[in-house]
């Protein structure tokens, strides 16, 4: 399989979605959701990151399985770093 050529409309749609989500995340910060402010901000950020990775970085279209393995492994180890560190620090009795 050769590389995939993404249609311009798809790229522009992703770009518009990213801009709208940036506005939404900035606007949501001013609404009091209690602890959910952080969660909403991080969910929107992750959604934006997925759009960039899948469409702009062509992960969705990549025929090479090895690329996906590398990416998933990197995110997996990042989650170990963040998950286990926070599980420690947030449960300590200071």
């Amino acid at each position, binding site marked *: 399989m050769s590389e995939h050529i993404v249609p311009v409309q798809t790229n522009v749609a992703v770009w518009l979605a990213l801009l709208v989500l940036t506005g939404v*995340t900035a606007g949501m910060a001013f609404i009091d959701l209690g602890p959910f402010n952080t969660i909403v901000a991080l969910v929107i950020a992750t959604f934006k990151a997925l759009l960039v990775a899948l469409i702009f970085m062509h992960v969705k279209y990549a025929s090479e399985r090895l690329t996906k393995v590398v*990416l998933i492994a990197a995110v997996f180890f990042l989650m170990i770093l963040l998950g286990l560190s926070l599980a420690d620090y947030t449960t300590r009795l200071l």
Partner: protein
Amino acid sequence: MADSPMAVGQHSPALQHHFADMEQQRQASSLGMWLFLATEIMFFGGMFCAYLVYRYWYFADFAAASKSLDITLGTVNTAVLICSSLTVVLAVRAAQLGKRQEQVVYLALTLVLGLAFLGVKAIEWTSKFKEHHIPGAGFHFEGSVPQHPGQPVDQQHAQIFFSLYFAMTGMHALHMVIGVGIFSYLLYHAWKGSYTPEYHTPLENSGLYWHFVDIVWIYLFPLLYLIDRKK
């Protein structure tokens, strides 16, 4: 083993002799680039981890310090980076389709947007210097903790916020500076017509780098600027 004269005749000039064909060569460089990005994820991951731990410990002071950042400039810069990601995608697409002029235009636009981002960042950092929000002997942070008007902000904790702020946005900006350098090189070669539908790996892999730096900012923006903005 040496190639037979006939096989040499069919080679793309961009094919290096240790690869079987162009597709294998492209996949190998792509894999190398993704491995590099995996190391970059762990590099920034360490700083994000430090940030999250301190933010959990000193949430109120971090919220106060975060409020002193300019949310308008932060949002504008996020939009600028997103636009630059679009121009990168369109430059890669132009190379895939063999449109030289489009490549040059989109790469030039990417450079302009990248420099605009760095310019806005410079404005933000300058105001931090003026407000004495640079960690060190001269550090001073006025104000009280949000929702607790009587409680002054802990100077040490606010300094930790700004140390992390400068470390993270600084490393991100360094990546942007390197990106601007890489894209200047790409612009020169696109101008010369070096990138064809058969061979445009430098453009493709530099694009991956640029998008990665964009993703880092996508997380930095809400984490640093939007901790606690509610009235």
